[in-house]
């Protein structure tokens, strides 16, 4: 038995859409009768837009709150602000005049834990600096463990559905399945609170995926305010598609990229009307976020990039190289992560979720603290790597040897290519170590029982690789400016190579390799930079990365997780390896009991109830008689039970021996017989049918395109069997040879 029948229910798109059409037609017809009805029809049309506005406001506000709280809590691991404990490091030193050019974040109002607890400081190495370092290290670990412990216990105690990324499950929901409680209010509250804790605990995860889940929860909760969306599952999924766009939009500050992400990655059916509404909601959310102003200077996203340095055609070579790296990394990451998650599912590791989270946090904290590039959060690391070095920067990554001429080269952002100095070499080997560390730790972090996202760690890996390559190219160009490759365009004293651009392209390549996003990724990256110049390098890298990654496995990380968990998701791109006919897949099979049907007349209420109770099917076909199985229609179990129940209570004379009649005109009952129960109204008289010789490919296509839940199979016009979506999924799981992992118990 398919193990998830209790958790998942299918919706019938066709019925839901026709219900909505009927409702709309009724309102439109009534609106001509009175002013009140006219106003009602106007407000009904408007309700969609009002809902989008509310979704945008609520999601934007929550995202702003999450950002502010996450920044504060992350800095809490390192120290405390004495003028107001609610300020993080940057805001504590905001008004201070003691910040210097070299030490931009040092001020007396902010004190590290070593300074508060022991009075020693790392700066004065001889006078207790080692003790200060040790105390800071210890406090960092203690805070990280505390945050992780709080996060996992809250998830476990209140809302177990709040863990993980959320995007695979939302994909499943949008394709027509219902997971009860996944988008509820407790899940929303817990996900918001524990996301901040998980991000602040120093784990290698991001908050983009969970923000999509948060936005969808907001949308689901707000749908309850509007009858149009509360009662209709298909309309609700339109709103959820828009909410997914809102989630990405607030995470990156990229409304168009968010809409395209929703179209490409998350949604199953995406009508054009949803496109415009999603864009509206995404804009409202981005505007709300901007007005809350979490970053203090009207920027939406931490790594907004401002350089516009040109790039040369020769650089396409290294960009494609970065694309290949991104594709290889994506394929490797997916395989490693799925293997690790499978270990978690099947062995004893899965029985100790709290211990697992604590151990991984401790490991991450211990290894990350000594290296300053892994100690800072993922988003901060990316923004530093994207930054192009100018005269105004004093970080280690911009530690080039000073050129002797102090000519007007400092004007504007670009500086001439310079040889690397001591600071830069130190930064390079630290970055290389950080790359190896991040590649390995993200594999075991994604999928843990705390809210975790994947975008920032993948982009960080790509950005580090890109920056390393960029600095390498820069030094190569500086020392070999006479060689054939560089001579034409890179003369000494010119700023030809921008390592920040390489970091950006690397980030896009790695993220594309893992998630297999294409258009949406390019648009998000270009919205981040604000310039059209870099579209070609980004596209080159993204395409290369997708091709290389697809060569190793067709699925992105989200589809891989859907398959790992066995969600009933009908993939749009799946093909069968062996051709088969509908007759092979439909039920009843040869060994099954015969098809349970209802005849259009001749059955009593008792017989119908007995039939319904003895089986667990969700619907029954109605045929003319037991001898000729000519099809009349299809009736749902739920409707049948409710109608019989109502009739027994309200209609007089209906007892167990009453005849159940599905025809329009029934013969007059005998004088002493009880009155018949007419149930023609609940029968669906236009069920979809296919013949038994229809190839399975066509049947699956019909299911996908129409969103059917079940389809009747006929032979020479007579009813032969029934095929449901779950049968199709089981058949697909059996068929594909590249799915040896399906556990036998799941069949």
């Amino acid at each position, binding site marked *: 038995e398919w193990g998830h029948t209790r958790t998942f229910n299918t919706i019938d798109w066709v019925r839901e859409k026709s219900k909505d059409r009927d409702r709309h037609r009724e309102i439109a017809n009534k609106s001509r009768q009175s002013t009140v009805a006219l106003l009602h029809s106007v407000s009904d049309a408007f309700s969609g837009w009002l809902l989008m506005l509310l979704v945008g406001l609520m999601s934007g506000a929550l995202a702003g709150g999450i950002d502010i709280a996450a920044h504060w809590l992350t800095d809490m691991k390192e120290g405390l602000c004495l003028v107001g404990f609610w*300020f993080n490091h940057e805001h504590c030193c905001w008004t201070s005049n003691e910040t210097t*050019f070299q030490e931009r974040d040092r001020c007396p109002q902010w004190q590290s834990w070593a300074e508060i607890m022991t009075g020693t400081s790392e700066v004065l190495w001889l006078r207790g600096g080692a003790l200060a370092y040790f105390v800071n290290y210890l406090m960092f670990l203690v805070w990280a463990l505390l945050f992780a412990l709080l996060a996992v*216990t809250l998830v476990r105690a209140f809302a177990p559905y709040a863990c993980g990324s959320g995007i695979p499950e939302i994909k499943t929901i949008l394709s027509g399945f219902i997971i009860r409680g996944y988008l509820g209010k407790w899940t929303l*509250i817990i996900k918001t609170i524990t996301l901040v804790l998980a991000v602040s605990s120093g784990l290698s995860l991001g908050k983009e995926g969970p923000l999509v889940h948060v936005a969808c929860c907001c949308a689901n*909760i707000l749908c309850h305010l509007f009858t149009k969306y509360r009662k209709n599952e298909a309309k609700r999924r339109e709103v959820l598609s828009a909410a997914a766009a809102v989630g990405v939009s607030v995470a990156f500050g990229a409304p168009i990229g968010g809409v395209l992400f929703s179209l490409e990655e998350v949604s199953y059916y995406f009508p054009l009307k949803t496109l415009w509404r999603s864009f509206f909601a995404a804009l409202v959310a981005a505007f709300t976020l901007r007005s809350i102003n979490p970053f203090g200077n009207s920027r939406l996203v931490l790594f907004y990039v401002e350089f516009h340095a040109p790039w040369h055609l020769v650089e396409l070579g290294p960009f494609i190289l970065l694309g290949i790296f991104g594709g290889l990394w994506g394929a490797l990451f997916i395989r490693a992560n799925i293997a690790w998650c499978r270990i978690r599912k099947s062995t004893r590791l899965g029985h100790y979720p709290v211990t697992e989270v604590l151990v991984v946090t401790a490991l991450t904290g211990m290894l990350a603290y000594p290296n300053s590039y892994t100690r800072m959060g993922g988003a901060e690391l990316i923004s530093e790597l994207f930054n192009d070095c100018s005269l105004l920067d004093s970080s280690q990554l911009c530690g080039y040897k000073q050129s002797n001429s102090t000519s007007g080269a400092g004007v504007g952002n670009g500086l001439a290519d310079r040889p690397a100095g001591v600071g830069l070499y130190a930064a390079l080997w630290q970055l290389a170590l950080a790359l190896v560390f991040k590649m390995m730790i993200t594999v075991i972090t994604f999928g843990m029982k705390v809210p975790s996202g994947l975008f920032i760690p993948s982009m960080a890996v790509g950005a580090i690789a890109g920056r390393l390559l960029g600095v390498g190219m820069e030094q190569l160009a500086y020392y070999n400016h006479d060689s054939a490759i560089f001579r034409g365009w890179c003369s000494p004293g010119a700023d030809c190579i921008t390592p920040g651009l390489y970091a950006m392209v690397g980030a896009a390549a790695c993220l594309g390799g893992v998630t297999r996003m294409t258009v949406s990724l390019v648009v998000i990256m270009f919205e981040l930079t604000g310039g059209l110049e870099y579209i070609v390098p980004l596209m080159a890298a993204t395409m290369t990365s997708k091709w290389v990654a697809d060569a190793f496995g067709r699925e992105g990380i989200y589809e891989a997780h859907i398959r790992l968990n066995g969600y009933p998701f009908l993939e749009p791109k799946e093909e069968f390896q062996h051709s088969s006919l509908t007759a092979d897949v439909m039920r009843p099979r040869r060994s099954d009991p015969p098809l349970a049907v209802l005849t259009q007349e001749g059955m009593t209420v008792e017989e119908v109830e007995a039939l319904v109770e003895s089986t667990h099917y969700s619907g029954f076909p109605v045929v003319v008689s037991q001898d000729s199985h000519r099809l009349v229609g299809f009736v749902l179990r739920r409707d049948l039970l409710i109608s019989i129940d109502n009739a027994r209570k309200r209609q007089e004379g209906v007892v167990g021996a009453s005849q159940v009649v599905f025809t329009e005109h029934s013969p007059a009952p005998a004088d002493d017989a009880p009155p018949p129960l007419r149930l023609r109204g609940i029968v669906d008289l236009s069920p979809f049918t296919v013949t038994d010789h229809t190839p399975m490919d066509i049947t699956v296509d019909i299911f996908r395109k129409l969103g059917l839940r079940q389809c009747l199979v006929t032979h020479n016009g007579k009813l032969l069997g029934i095929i449901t979506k779950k049968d199709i999924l089981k058949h697909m799981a059996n068929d594909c040879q590249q799915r040896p992992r399906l556990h036998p118990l799941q069949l």
Partner: protein
Amino acid sequence: MKSVFLLEAFSVACFVLLNQVTAKNSEDIRCKCICPPYRDIEGQIYKQNVSLKDCNCLHVVEPMPVDGKDVEAYCLRCECKFEERSSATIKVTIIMYLSILGLLLLYMVYLTLLEPMLKRRLFGHSQLIQSDDDVGQPFANAHNVLSHSHSRPNMLNKVEHAQQRWRRQVQEQRKSVFDRHVVLS
């Protein structure tokens, strides 16, 4: 339920709009000028609480480290940015977050530790039958308390019922996520 959600949504909207209307603290605006090293003068950062129109090198960089004829060259290299923040928003957000976190932790402690103790004291040991795998988990007595609720007044009854229903849901979720691993790996 409907009114609660409506209220929630409106309070969020008001919070957002209020941020823009509240009077700005004078300490919340600044002009930050970063000046790189120039000849033998070190790099410096200057900050002042001036408005947008005065945010340029000449007003903010005080005292000017170079003499009259070099001032222009020096100022050309400096970059001045106007920034503003809302410290009230930050304070309110952090305090709200901490209070919600505190409430959740207290509720968790109450459900895990205090409630079984209170129920045991009220109903006696014999009436609580706990299955083996429920021991030590929150909401272990969800099924049992329902039967004891007939004597209490209607409002409390409803709240109790809703809470028991919620606890059962959470237990179901926990079983499928943590024990059977059918959802969310």
